[in-house]
């Protein structure tokens, strides 16, 4: 069967969604897909573009991956633009001169920023804000300048203003209309927003019509306005709206709108039945949709139509909620009350900078639209009223009036009231029905629902609503969500932690008798051991704790596949003296151990038999080494780069700090292993952003990143706080770690733990920085107790004859395990394979221990 030749023009966010949906449909083999991508890289997340200025890289923003596209069987032509379409012969021609035949075309060419044609608009350092290349140009210009102006006070303009401010420029916004965000807000809302933004140091000039841009006296440019005023600045960013990129469609004679845009019908087809248009370039019903969600829907419709399925694009809701420079702004539906008979209710609090307005219909029963500035908490509820035509309460203003004391929110909309079709997440078009289906299909936690429906993984605006809904649905199914640790305890790790603290429980037996049943198991015993250790930090080999631990914790070493152990002494910050290095070499030689340098900047010695461990550690402890806790769920290493002491770029002493924090937190038992790293400057040689706790030196202090990890699912840490002095840094880490230890589930790494906290990173900031739970002092105190009671487990063990008894291989014989056999490879030992053992390959002689 001949494959349909499908050409996608434009690999932006919507083009990418199209490709992903096609692949997900399982029908992609029916098509021979070629992608023309004008930009030098595959699709990336334009919505998060501003995050580039807070440290995200082009890779972080990437959505399309070359390997993924290849796996899907698509051909990509990067850096290659389609310049014409010949509809009669069904071919396209590209900027490289290549001509390709097609059966179907998908136009996803997006839009370009509109630059008003004022004289001087094309001067150097006059820029736009749409692509990664634009950002690079902005960064370069900003580095040379002191001040910047954004032309355009709409949604994108304000985001651009934030970027300029983050780049350290004195920032102005110049808007033609009399208010900010003229499309979404009314005068009162615009004013509140303006005041708030001014408080943040951004100067706003409304009602300004730029006449021309000329050389400035004190800066690069001088902008001259119609009212005679002038403004001098070094950088100008145009953000005066977008225009659909319909030039290809125009030149091949497709229908386009009067003011631009490729005309499409409900099937997303253009006036040519072989050509679809989707995303920001498409004009549906006389409207352009400048948001991703409607574009994603068009992409899904186009895929469905290609496969002959029945699906239509019927418009989209343009309600938005966003945070502009920390100010919540939301706009829903008919925010300006254009519907005949519409009536408003407004609430204004100038002191706190809060403005809320709802627009209701003539009967007062239906919500038509709303505007929220300064406090957008009601967005989710209001949106559901508007979208689903739910009857308003008797006094609609109760929805926006503050609730002080008394009976709380009278009219808060219960999730139960939402119809099945109610859209919960607009980014990924997930309805209440989809979520219920996921739960019926076995999703039992918020995390499950998120990963199988993608809800709340876009802008995150719907996460509070989603959480409520998921909880409600689980409860209403009578599912008592089973988070029990195992058959012996009907509690989560967090609950057990609490019980241990509150009841002052000091042993597993006590815990089992009071709160559990049976004998325990390999799940609850190590969990209890970890909780007991993090609460009371008692010596882990103390009698009542023996038997709780995983073999690694019991023998304070990591068991390898043949039953021998590896030994990893602590090398704080990766700094080690030559003398200590020599000791490690001598020990390895004496006991014939395999040695390897670890990723955590330490040295791992493999192949130690159980009975050798105490002898090895006696030598190591004498030489000043301590246990590295490589065996425990606890702090592993604090990796560091060499820092300002040696490195010519370093701005602070990363090694010194690494050693200090490693020594502070060593031995802390936690739900999972914890890794740290410290870099001496933003070049980030220590890869701190891939750690649970990453610290990077800046000119003004330390930046703190949290909840990154490597391993199976790598994740970059989130920038948590910037330019901290050392005391504050340590305080935040104390609180963070203790909060994690107290509340995380068994084997939950910090990243998953944070994703499961309602409110995620913001919530963590509230708890740790703003101390919203009032727990700060307690967390610090508990950490101090752990720090103060630290003991090296190996030092204690070699001094304790009782504990040493455990390292005898046999209780009744003085022999060694004959099944442990080594052979040589690359001049070191390795375990013999079963075949080698069977063939009796000459083994390495049993080691002679002096």
């Amino acid at each position, binding site marked *: 069967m001949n494959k349909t030749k499908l050409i996608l023009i434009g690999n932006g966010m919507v083009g990418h969604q199209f490709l992903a949906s096609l692949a997900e449909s399982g029908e992609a083999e029916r098509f021979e897909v070629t992608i023309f991508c004008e930009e030098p890289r595959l699709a990336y997340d334009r919505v998060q573009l501003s995050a580039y200025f807070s440290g995200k890289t082009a890779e972080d923003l990437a959505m399309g991956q070359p390997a993924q596209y290849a796996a899907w069987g698509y051909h990509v032509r990067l850096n290659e633009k389609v310049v014409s379409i010949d509809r009669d012969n069904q071919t396209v021609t590209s900027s490289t001169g290549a001509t390709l035949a097609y059966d179907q075309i998908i136009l996803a060419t997006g839009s370009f920023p509109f630059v008003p044609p004022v004289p001087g608009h094309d001067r150097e350092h006059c820029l736009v804000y749409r692509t990664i290349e634009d950002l690079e140009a902005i960064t370069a210009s900003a580095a040379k300048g002191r001040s910047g102006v954004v032309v355009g006070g709409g949604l994108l303009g304000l985001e651009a203003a934030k970027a300029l401010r983050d780049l350290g420029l004195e920032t102005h916004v110049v808007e033609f209309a009399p208010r900010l965000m003229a499309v979404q807000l009314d005068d009162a809302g615009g004013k509140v927003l303006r005041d708030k933004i001014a408080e943040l140091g951004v100067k706003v000039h409304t009602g300004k019509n730029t006449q021309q841009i000329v050389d400035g006296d004190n800066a690069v440019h001088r902008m001259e306005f119609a009212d005679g005023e002038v403004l001098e600045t070094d950088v100008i960013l145009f953000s005066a709206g977008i225009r659909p990129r319909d030039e290809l469609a125009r030149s091949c004679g497709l229908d386009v709108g009067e003011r631009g845009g490729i005309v499409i019908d409900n099937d997303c087809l253009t006036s040519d039945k072989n050509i679809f248009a989707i995303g920001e370039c498409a004009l549906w019903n006389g409207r352009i949709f400048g948001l991703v969600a409607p574009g994603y829907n068009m992409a899904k419709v186009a895929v469905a139509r290609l496969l002959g399925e029945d699906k239509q694009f019927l418009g989209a809701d343009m309600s938005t909620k966003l945070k502009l420079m920390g100010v919540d702004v939301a706009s829903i539906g008919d925010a300006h009350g254009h519907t005949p008979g519409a009536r408003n209710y407004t609430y204004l609090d100038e002191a706190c900078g809060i403005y809320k307005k709802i627009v209701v219909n003539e009967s007062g029963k239906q919500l038509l639209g709303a505007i929220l500035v300064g406090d957008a908490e009601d967005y989710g509820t209001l949106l559901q009223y508007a979208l689903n035509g739910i009857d308003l309460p008797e006094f609609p203003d109760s929805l926006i009036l503050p609730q002080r004391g008394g009976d709380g929110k009278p009219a808060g909309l219960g999730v139960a009231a939402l119809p099945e079709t109610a859209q919960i997440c607009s980014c990924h078009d997930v309805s209440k029905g989809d979520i219920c289906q996921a739960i019926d299909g076995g999703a039992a936690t918020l995390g499950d629902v998120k990963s199988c429906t993608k809800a709340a993984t876009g802008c995150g605006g719907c996460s509070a609503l989603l959480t409520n809904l998921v909880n409600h649905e689980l409860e209403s199914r009578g599912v008592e969500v089973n988070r029990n640790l195992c058959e012996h305890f009907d509690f989560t790790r967090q609950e057990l932690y609490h019980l241990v603290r509150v009841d002052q429980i000091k042993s597993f037996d006590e815990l089992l008798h009071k709160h559990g049943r049976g004998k325990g198991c390999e799940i609850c*015993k190590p969990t209890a051991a970890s909780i007991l250790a993090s609460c009371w930090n008692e010596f882990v080999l103390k009698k009542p704790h023996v038997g709780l631990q995983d073999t690694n914790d019991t023998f304070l070493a990591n068991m390898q596949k043949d039953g021998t152990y590896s030994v990893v002494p602590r090398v704080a910050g990766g700094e080690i003296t030559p003398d200590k290095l020599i000791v490690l070499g001598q020990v390895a030689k004496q006991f014939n151990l395999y040695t390897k340098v670890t990723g955590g900047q330490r040295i791992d010695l493999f192949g130690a038999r159980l009975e050798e461990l105490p002898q090895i550690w006696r030598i190591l402890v004498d030489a000043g080494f301590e246990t590295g806790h490589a065996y425990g769920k606890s702090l592993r290493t604090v990796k560091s780069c060499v820092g300002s002491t040696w490195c010519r770029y370093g701005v602070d002493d990363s090694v010194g700090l690494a050693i200090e924090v490693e020594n502070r937190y060593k031995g802390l038992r936690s739900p999972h292993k914890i890794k740290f790293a410290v870099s001496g400057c933003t070049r980030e040689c220590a890869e701190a952003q891939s750690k649970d706790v990453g610290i990077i030196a800046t000119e003004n202090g330390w930046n703190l990143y949290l909840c990154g990890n490597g391993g199976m699912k790598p994740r970059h840490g989130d920038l948590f706080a910037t330019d901290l002095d050392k005391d504050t840094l340590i305080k935040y880490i104390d609180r963070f770690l203790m909060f994690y230890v107290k509340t995380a589930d068994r084997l939950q790494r910090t990243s998953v733990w944070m994703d499961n906290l309602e409110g995620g990173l913001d919530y963590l900031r509230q708890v740790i920085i703003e101390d919203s739970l009032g727990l700060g002092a307690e967390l610090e105190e508990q950490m101090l107790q752990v720090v103060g009671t630290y003991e090296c487990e190996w030092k204690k063990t070699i001094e304790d004859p009782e504990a040493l008894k455990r390292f005898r291989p046999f209780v009744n014989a003085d022999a060694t395990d004959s*099944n442990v056999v080594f052979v040589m490879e690359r001049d070191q030992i390795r375990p013999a394979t079963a075949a080698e053992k069977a063939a009796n390959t000459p083994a390495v002689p049993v080691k002679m221990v002096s």
Partner: protein
Amino acid sequence: MTTNTKLISLCSKADLVPNSGVCALVDGRQVALFYLPEDEQVYAIDNHDPFGQANVLSRGIVGSIADVPVVASPLYKQRFSLVDGQCFEDEAVKLATWQVTLLDDVLMIDPTPR
């Protein structure tokens, strides 16, 4: 069934670790011994983990499934009944067990596996 004459002494009670395991050599075979004081019981099963092919079971964690005492291998976590050596993850795998008794403070074993 068994007569006491077959039993030989292995070690003292003090050599055992409550709620955990130790290992003994019996006729050249490694036997894992688990002492559960609550049941006043000692169990003896093969120390060899057939999955990981290493002699490690005495270093596993002791627990229970329903009311059956078990040990979990420290290598890949399969669980074996201490009573009859049956593996819970793989029906086809059953380890040798030995009969042991505490006579006063001495642990006696029948050196022939069951």
